[in-house]
């Protein structure tokens, strides 16, 4: 299998202009043009894709429809009937989620002397973290500084970021990189140890640290190894379906379902950290996603029901370059590093239409404009439309062998389908990638609900309304660490209290008053991709 004949003919157009494009310079968009591009073509601005939430602490605020659907839904548990007399496990710190933020929080809490349980509905490490290929930002080069990093983050986020959170993000960058170095991360380095760093979209300095195009996986491998080395109790294949609150409204644990047996498990804790990740598997506006199987916004639902405030849940990041062809892997990520090392975006006529390293929201909007309004996209046999990402340029610019050295994961991914990205371009279209907002936290990861913390993609405020490449890997480590530390401190001054589902009684009452259909249930736990006629009830639904 490789490109069909019709697409091979189109590739000729890309080849024709390759040489002259080598020296072509496209300037950054002026602020006003950027704004109008976003308003006209970014999916966030599409009419009818958001609505006001009817219930909860964010009542009256706007959320994307698919998230609102989950917030306006009943629990699988009936708070009047469900018995919580028998607690299955107790711990100081309960961490829900086994990706990068959860693992880092666990390590941090344990190092502060806390007794930790980490739960995940998949396996430890099955997360968006492993799929983060592009790199991790940190201002550690002499021509860079946390001050410049701060400005890049704020500008990228549309100046909507919470300043104190950004402060800690950029401030902790260098120490996080040093920690990873000490843990044995195989960063791309020069002989003398100098980090090889590159640009990402929206960076004004080359501060993207990489480990080929397996950066997130390399980080997760280390985190996972350390969690196991420290003997932290990890429970896999259990999904949190409800948080527990005590009589003072404090979060004191969670109810889980063992996905393999259907058994309910109750874990009582002194502090609880949500590290449940993002929402890609909601397929917002029908977009394909680059996210892992468990990215179903469960954390937003649980947090909201217990009264934690959410922020910026009306904005989603679409990664500009998802796979458009081959269809089998449609929506999977083509890392921004591909553009970072020199590939250009090119339309059907072989022409560039945007500077490739604008911020993600901008590049995604430009690709959508090219395919829709300007009708200059390339059609696949399955009827999808995309633009070319001209990867052979990387070999021309960086020399033969650059792709296999810098982008082994990408090279392999396409080779499996008979496409040699050293010689042929990739067809690409935006894919749902990141939940910009989430549970509102303070710099220690605390939410407005006592005893409940959040870290990583589930949390909101750090990235404003648009995250920059490489700041998510930094975010999960910085705020995972901070939340872990804080939770351990909180646990020291907290006694176990009686767990209840009182918050759920209130939430259900509100839902009823708002007239929400009683058959609507959440969290989603996992997406169901079976044929409709074969769908049966799943273990957490009863």
């Amino acid at each position: 299998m490789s490109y069909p004949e019709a697409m091979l003919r189109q590739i000729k157009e890309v080849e024709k202009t390759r040489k002259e494009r080598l020296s072509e310079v496209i300037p950054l968009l002026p602020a006003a043009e950027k704004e109008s591009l976003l308003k006209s073509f970014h999916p966030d601005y599409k009419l009818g894709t958001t609505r006001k939430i009817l219930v909860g602490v964010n009542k009256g605020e706007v959320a994307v429809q698919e998230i609102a659907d989950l917030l306006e839904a009943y629990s699988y548990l009936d708070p009047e009937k469900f018995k919580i007399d028998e607690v299955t496990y107790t711990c100081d710190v309960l961490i829900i989620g086994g990706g990068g933020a959860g693992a880092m929080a666990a390590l941090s809490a344990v190092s502060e002397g806390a007794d930790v349980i980490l739960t995940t509905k998949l396996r430890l490490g099955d997360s968006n973290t492993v799929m983060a290929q592009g790199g991790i930002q940190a201002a550690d080069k002499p021509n860079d500084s946390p001050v410049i990093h701060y400005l890049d983050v704020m500008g990228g986020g549309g100046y909507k970021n919470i300043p104190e959170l950004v402060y800690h993000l950029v401030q902790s960058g260098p120490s996080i990189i040093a920690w990873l170095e000490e843990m044995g991360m195989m960063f791309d380095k020069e002989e003398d140890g100098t980090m090889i760093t590159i640009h990402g979209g929206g960076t004004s300095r080359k501060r993207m640290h990489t480990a080929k195009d397996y950066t997130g996986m390399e980080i997760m491998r280390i985190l996972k190894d350390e969690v196991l080395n420290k003997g932290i109790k990890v429970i896999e294949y259990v999904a949190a379906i409800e948080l527990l609150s005590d009589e003072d409204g404090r979060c004191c644990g969670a109810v889980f379902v063992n996905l393999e047996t259907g058994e309910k498990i109750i874990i009582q804790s002194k502090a609880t950290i949500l590290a449940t990740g993002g929402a890609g598997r909601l397929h917002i506006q029908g977009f394909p996603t680059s996210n892992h199987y468990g990215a179903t916004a469960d954390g937003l639902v649980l947090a909201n029901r217990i009264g934690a405030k959410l922020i910026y849940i009306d904005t989603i990041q679409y990664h500009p370059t998802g796979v458009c062809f081959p269809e089998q892997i449609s929506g999977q990520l083509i890392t921004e590093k591909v553009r970072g090392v020199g590939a250009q975006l090119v339309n059907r006529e072989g022409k560039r239409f945007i500077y490739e390293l604008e911020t993600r929201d901008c590049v995604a909007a430009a690709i959508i404009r090219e395919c829709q309004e300007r009708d200059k996209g390339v059609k696949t046999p399955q009827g999808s439309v995309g633009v070319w990402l001209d990867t052979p340029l990387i070999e021309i610019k960086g020399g033969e062998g650059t792709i296999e050295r810098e982008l082994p994961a990408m090279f392999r991914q396409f080779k499996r389908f008979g496409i040699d990205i050293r010689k042929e371009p990739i067809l690409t279209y935006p894919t749902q990638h990141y939940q910009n907002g989430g549970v509102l936290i303070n710099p220690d990861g605390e939410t407005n609900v006592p005893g409940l913390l959040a870290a990583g993609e589930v949390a909101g405020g750090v990235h404003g309304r648009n995250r920059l490449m490489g700041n998510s890997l930094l975010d999960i480590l910085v705020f995972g660490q901070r939340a872990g530390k804080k939770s351990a401190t909180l646990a020291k001054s907290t006694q176990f209290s009686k767990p209840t589902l009182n918050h759920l009684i209130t939430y259900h009452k509100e839902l009823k008053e708002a007239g929400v259909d009683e058959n609507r249930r959440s969290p989603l736990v996992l997406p169901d991709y079976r044929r409709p006629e074969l769908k049966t009830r799943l273990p957490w639904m009863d």
Partner: protein
Amino acid sequence: MKEISIYVMGKEYKVPEGQTIMKALEYAGFFYIRGAGCRGGFCGSCGTVYRTKDSYRLKVGLACQNTVEEGMYLTQIPFYPANKKTYFIKNLSATAETLITIYPEILRCISCGSCTKVCPQEIDVMDFVNAAIRGDIKRCAELSFNCILCGLCASRCPAEIVQYYVALLARRLYGAHILKNSPHLKERLKEMDEKKFESDLQRLLKMDTAQLKELYQKRDIEE
């Protein structure tokens, strides 16, 4: 849409041609609890062993990255009871002794090559195990770098070596003890300790959007 026959753990299902194994199984009515993770070729949870009709040869692939073939007999191996030792990476030295002390079973390698044959990432697993035995930690780390910890190598090893954990240890030894520490990072940490950027950061922290916007537009971009 053309349908083909695949045999999931021996039972026949008709699925659309050209789909990934994972999507085909879902089409057939399977709901994944185990065996699906990132769905993008990075997490190693969907390692699949299969053979095609009338062939004795076992093949492997990731269910999320490989497409179904007519007459494919398949099973996924979502878990393997592997032995992972615990250690403090800082206290170890990057030598053959370290690897052999922690994972002595590597010396049992009979160089059969079963591990290499079964790796969905096309890593020369046997070669990196041999590098580990020789104490060539750099080579072991570099050869194994693309490992996604799926465990298929260990499942085929007659010597019961857990190659992917050996490699994980080797890479961490290489990163922590052989690769040079970054000099500019050390310098920056010192500056952070001295709070060199603190007053500038505090100034930015207090700026309103208009002021930040102006600075942002004016910032110079490294070539």
